[in-house]
Every structure is written in structure tokens, then in C-alpha cells.
């Protein structure tokens, strides 16, 4: 038939269905220009199998909700083009590693954020009276630059999923939480440097890191938790030797 359009190019995706146990189920999805992995997952849920579960919110790499394991590598899916990962026309999508699976592609991120708290990943005001001005912090100062280097974390959990130490030691605070503590340690306005260092030096803290650098290799924001953790190792050792921990 001459009027027939050529068949749309297709992609075979295998998607994890189930919880901790389950299986990869293949789906055929139409290839589209500029399609992201999140678009593929959405396509399956919206047009093929309405029961597929996954999570997203902002769809532009700001909220860190949409991370999944794509062909064995943790990625933010809303900013990962299919072209980049579908070398052989096949894509396998699973939930993030190192977090309990709720269903299909959605994981429970509670342990990740609990550890953020256990690491004292929160600002503590230093000067209770000085609340009506902005502290003077030259942007070029060493501390500010160090704080800025790690501040744009979106809490996506990619680093946490990539890190084997997290897999081996379920108490390990993990790269994102430690990266946050390092930012605070460098924040000249923060009033709890000692507490931050003490938390980072705890028995599941920075010293458990073997510098695998998976965190920095896969962080979609290009942050470097490895360097942050190395910084914590140095500073905590200094405090330890001074008897301040």
C-alpha cells in the first residue's frame, strides 16, 4: 500500500516490575526526537501499562525525584536522553540501588534523608543577635568557594545508589549527607562546626569511605562528594588529634 507510513522506529525497554523481588518486563516504545528516559517510562505508564509506578516532579533536573538505574548506572531520568544510553537499541530501567523498593521504579528515600539528619546536615545559626544583617562573605574567599562547590545538591540519591560502601555497610552516612556536612563546615556563618565534624567522624561516617569516586563520577550536578569527604577526613583527624571530637 503506497499510502502507508513507514513504521515508527521502536525501542525495546525492559522495566523492573515488582518490589524487592520481581522481574524485568520488556515493552516496545516508539522512538521520538529528544525523548528522555523519563519520557519512555511515562509512555509505558500512559499508553501501555497503566499500573507502572515511578516518581518525578519538576521534570527539569531540579527536584531529584526521578533517579533510576539505567543500564546498570544510576541517573536522573528527566535529563537523560535516550540517545545517550540506548547504544544498542536496548534500555533496561530499574529502581535505584541501596534503597528499599516501594514498587517498580519508586524507592523509599527515607533512609537517605534520615542519614542527612544523622550527619547533622542542617545549618545552626552562630550569632543569635545578628539576625538583621547579612554576614559579609567575600565570594572569592576560600571558605565560600569550598561551601559553594557542594551546595547545589538536589538530593537525588544517585551518588548514594552508586556507592558500594553504602551497599556493604547499611549504616554508612553516604556521599550526599557527608557532602552537605562539608558545606556546613566551610560555612563561615555556621555555629556548630564541632558538632558537624563529630557527626561526620562517627562510626558510620567519613572514615568508612574508600574513595571509590563513584559518587563524583555519576553525580548529575557534577558535584564532588569524594573531595568533600576527603576534606572531612582531614578536618576530623585534626580535631581528633587535638582532642576536640
Amino acid at each position, binding site marked *: 500500500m503506497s499510502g502507508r507510513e513507514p513504521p515508527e522506529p521502536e525501542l525495546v525497554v525492559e522495566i523492573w516490575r515488582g518490589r524487592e523481588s520481581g522481574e524485568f518486563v520488556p515493552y516496545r516504545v516508539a522512538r521520538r526526537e529528544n525523548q528522555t528516559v523519563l519520557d519512555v517510562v511515562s509512555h509505558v505508564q500512559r499508553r501501555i501499562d497503566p499500573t507502572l509506578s515511578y516518581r518525578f516532579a519538576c521534570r527539569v533536573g531540579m527536584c531529584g525525584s526521578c533517579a533510576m538505574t539505567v543500564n546498570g548506572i544510576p541517573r536522573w531520568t528527566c535529563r537523560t536522553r535516550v540517545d545517550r544510553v540506548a547504544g544498542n537499541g536496548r534500555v533496561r530501567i530499574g529502581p535505584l540501588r541501596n534503597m528499599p523498593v516501594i514498587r517498580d521504579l519508586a524507592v523509599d528515600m527515607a533512609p537517605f534523608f534520615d542519614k542527612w539528619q544523622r550527619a547533622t546536615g542542617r545549618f545552626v545559626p552562630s550569632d543569635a543577635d545578628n539576625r538583621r544583617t547579612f554576614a559579609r562573605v567575600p565570594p572569592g574567599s576560600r571558605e565560600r568557594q569550598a561551601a559553594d562547590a557542594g551546595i547545589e545538591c538536589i538530593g537525588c540519591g544517585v551518588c548514594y545508589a552508586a556507592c558500594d*560502601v553504602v551497599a*556493604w*555497610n547499611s549504616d554508612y552516612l553516604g556521599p550526599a549527607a557527608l557532602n552537605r556536612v562539608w558545606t556546613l563546615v566551610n560555612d563561615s556563618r555556621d555555629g556548630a562546626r564541632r558538632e558537624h565534624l563529630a557527626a561526620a*567522624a*562517627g*562510626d*558510620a*561516617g567519613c*572514615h*568508612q569511605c574508600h574513595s571509590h569516586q563513584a559518587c563524583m563520577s555519576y553525580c548529575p550536578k557534577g558535584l564532588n562528594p569524594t573531595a568533600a569527604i576527603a576534606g572531612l*577526613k582531614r578536618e*576530623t*583527624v585534626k580535631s*581528633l*588529634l587535638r582532642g576536640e*571530637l
Partner: protein
Amino acid sequence: MTGRLEAWLYVAQRGSAFVLAPLVVVHLATMIYAIRGGLSAEEILSRTEDSAVWGSVYGLFVAAVAVHAPIGVRSIVREMTPWKGRSLDVAALLFCALIVVLGVRAVGALL
């Protein structure tokens, strides 16, 4: 030692690594140098006997390894096997003692 066991272990492990680094370089160099033409017990002994320098070098080597290796093995076991906790720590200490005992005997024998 406060409750910060892991932090102290880290210090000890990295500290011993700092000590080991030059010693291993020396050890590697002598080894590569010494094996030219083959080894014999006599040769080894002639090189080491009554040398205070060699004695302290190997003594230090043994001490550093006795600190360094058990800590390393402990973390490997902790991470890759289900074995954790006190009993593992004791085992690591025993391993440390083993290295010290064998090391003292060996260094003593060489001198």
C-alpha cells in the same frame, strides 16, 4: 581512646601507611638489587647481621604492618562478610599479635 573507634583506626591505618611507604620503597629496591645472582641465607644474614640500621628498619616495618594490615583486613571482612562486631575486633587484635610475634622472631633471627 574515646568512642571514636573508626576515626582512631583510620588515623592508625593511614599513619602506618605513611611509615610503610618509604620502607616499602627501600624493601623493593633491595629486593630487586639483591636477587641479582640468586639468594642464599648466608647472603641475607651477611647483609643484616649486627646492623643496627637494618634492625630498626625491619623492626619498624613489622610494627607498622602489624598496625596496618589487621585494620585493613578487618574492614574487608566487615564489608564483604556478615562477620562484624566485637569478635571481629578481637580477631584483628590476634592477627596483629601474630604479626608482632612472627616479626620479632624473624628480626631477632636476622640480627
